[in-house]
């Protein structure tokens, strides 16, 4: 029996609005065709069985760019970024459009910045905008992407002062905002990149893609903080290409969003590269977070590590899908993934789905998943020293989550992350 799915109002809104213009029109057309072939992902698709977008997006959320919000609203959201004192450069995007006045870019010859909304994109950006992603949401992103950051760190340059890409969504319109970043680290360069997502109260979708192209011997430390509004749907794709001896450390903290689907595709294209991908979710209410990683070891001698710590309170729902492919030539691959869930309520739920596809014989690959509540012995020990039950819980939850960002390189960023976790715990305590 063939099931023909009737287009949902949300899908119809995406189709009706499609009218590509400008230099990228052809790329957008083929990307949209890819999206249209499947439509919004739904639970009968294996990878999406926990996150049915056809159901989650029950009303039309047409693609929009540009803000209708007041300057005060925008400034309040911008000042909510916890990285104000840490970032040395900042590109700000408001409701899917670059805001040059609210951004501050350093005058340096070591880096080049671009706004992807510009009509005249440099080659190092447009070369990277190619249709062909197998993921419908990433394809939809390319079809509708309104703006985003282009960043090129030139060969041999070290930019270790953090650069922040701040995405602010005012939520004044029930709409879909679509952004895409193209980050290029040339040979032997290094950078620290922060990606912050902050949103107001109200229903919206943010479809965010980040492409990371890390050349030979280059090194990127990336930290993403997702504090979208609590009625928002955050759909994100991070696409990583690691060349020879390239090095990535990537950490994501998810606190916001009604529903989050974040995907990471890590492609090892050169030998001796390393990819460390970690994350922590702090979820409460009916928040939903589905994280899916696909680690593709196509070449020998690379190392991948994934560590996710998921804290779920009330009726929150967490999913971790970690897939590792080790291709036939990828001998001496060293891969390991683990996910750990802390369930603070009987209603909270967590699912882990590890998938290993190993075609090489000389590899070390492992995975582990745990799920449980707070350790009674640890609780007793803390309380036996005079620490109250509430405080002891907070300490243990904080320590549990912090393990995922222990090896974020920058002390200042790690402190901010610790502060965000503490803030979440304090709100939890306040009930």
């Amino acid at each position: 029996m063939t099931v023909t799915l009737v287009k949902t109002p949300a899908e119809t809104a995406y189709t009706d609005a499609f009218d590509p213009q400008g230099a990228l029109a052809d790329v957008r057309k083929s990307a949209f065709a890819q999206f249209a072939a499947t439509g919004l992902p739904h639970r009968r698709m294996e990878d999406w069985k926990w996150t049915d977008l056809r159901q989650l997006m029950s009303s039309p959320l047409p693609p929009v760019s540009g803000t209708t919000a007041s300057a005060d609203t925008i400034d309040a959201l911008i000042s909510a970024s916890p990285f104000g004192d840490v970032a040395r450069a900042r590109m700000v995007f408001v409701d899917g459009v670059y805001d040059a006045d609210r951004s501050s870019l350093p005058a340096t010859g070591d880096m080049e910045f671009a706004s992807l909304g510009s009509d005249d994109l440099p080659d190092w950006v447009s070369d990277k905008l190619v249709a062909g992603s197998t993921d419908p949401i990433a394809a939809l992103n390319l079809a509708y992407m309104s703006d985003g950051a282009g960043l090129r760190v030139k060969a041999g340059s070290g930019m270790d002062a953090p650069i922040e890409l701040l995405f602010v969504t005012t939520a004044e319109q029930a709409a879909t905002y679509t952004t895409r970043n193209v980050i290029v680290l040339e040979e032997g360069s290094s950078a620290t990149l922060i990606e912050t997502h902050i949103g107001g109260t109200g229903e919206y979708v943010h479809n965010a893609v980040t492409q990371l192209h890390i050349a030979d011997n280059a090194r990127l430390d990336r930290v993403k903080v997702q504090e979208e509004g609590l009625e928002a749907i955050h759909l994100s794709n991070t696409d990583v290409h690691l060349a020879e001896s390239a090095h990535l450390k990537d950490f994501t903290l998810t606190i916001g969003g009604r529903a989050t689907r974040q995907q990471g595709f890590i492609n090892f294209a050169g030998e001796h590269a390393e990819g460390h991908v970690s994350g922590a979710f702090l979820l409460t209410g009916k928040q939903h977070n589905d994280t899916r990683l696909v680690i593709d070891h196509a070449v020998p001698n690379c190392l991948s590590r994934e560590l996710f710590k998921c804290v779920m309170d009330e009726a929150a729902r967490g999913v971790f899908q970690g897939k590792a492919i080790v291709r036939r030539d990828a001998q001496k691959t060293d891969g390991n993934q683990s996910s750990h869930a802390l369930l603070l309520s009987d209603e909270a739920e967590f699912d882990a789905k590890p998938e290993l596809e190993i075609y090489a014989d000389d590899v070390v690959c492992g995975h582990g998943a745990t799920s449980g509540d707070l350790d009674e012995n640890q609780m007793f020990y803390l309380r036996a020293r005079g620490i109250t039950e509430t405080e002891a819980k907070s300490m243990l939850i904080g320590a549990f989550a912090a393990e995922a960002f222990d090896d974020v390189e920058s002390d200042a960023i790690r402190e901010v992350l610790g502060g965000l976790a503490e803030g979440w715990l304090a709100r939890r305590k306040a009930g």
Partner: protein
Amino acid sequence: MLEIKNLHVSLEEEDKQIIKGLDLTINAGEVNAIMGPNGSGKSTLSYVLAGRPGYEVTEGSITYKGQDLLEMEIDERAAAGVFLAFQYPIEIPGVATMQFLKVALNAQRKARGEGEMTTPDFMRLVRGKAEQLNVTTDMLKRPVNVGFSGGEKKRAEILQMAVLEPGLCVLDETDSGLDIDALRVVAEGVNALRSPDRGMLVITHYQRLLDYIVPDRVHVMSDGKIVKSGGKELALELEKDGYAAFAA
């Protein structure tokens, strides 16, 4: 200071009685030692004093400084001055020892209506005591008990005790796992805390510890009861003759 009367304790999970009518009084300024065969209920007694979940007191009472201890929460007991040095200290990954000590001390001070101790004062306090107990700065930075050797864990327990200055110190086999030098250091740390307004309950299997921490009273526990009490010479007798005479 501590009065235990006709204490009966069972496990909550299964129908098993562990303490079966125990009486014990500890006066301020005294060191009381409890010896007794494995499984006689010594650790259980120490846990019931600290308020560990999982045990049910079916009969009897425990009064500490005139308060009904059994009515108090775990952390209230600690703030009131009850301290248990664990037989098996618990590891807490992700919580630095120094941070843990500071939170604990300030929580107790707050519960007693005292002001918080400032960070510099606290650092000075801990550094001084840590030095006396051979607890390195590195250990203080590490997560609570994580990667500590058996002996290091025991020294860390005594450091916590020295910093928190409890009214009643319950030491459960603090000597096990200690080498001879560490035993002396720990015993000196404990002796330094002896004072006319502090009571101590020292659980041990070995007379050797009692050479260093000389007890005022020694009790023999067997099958959930105190079966004999005496002066420090009782420990010497036990060392010689074993527990055969007290077999349940």
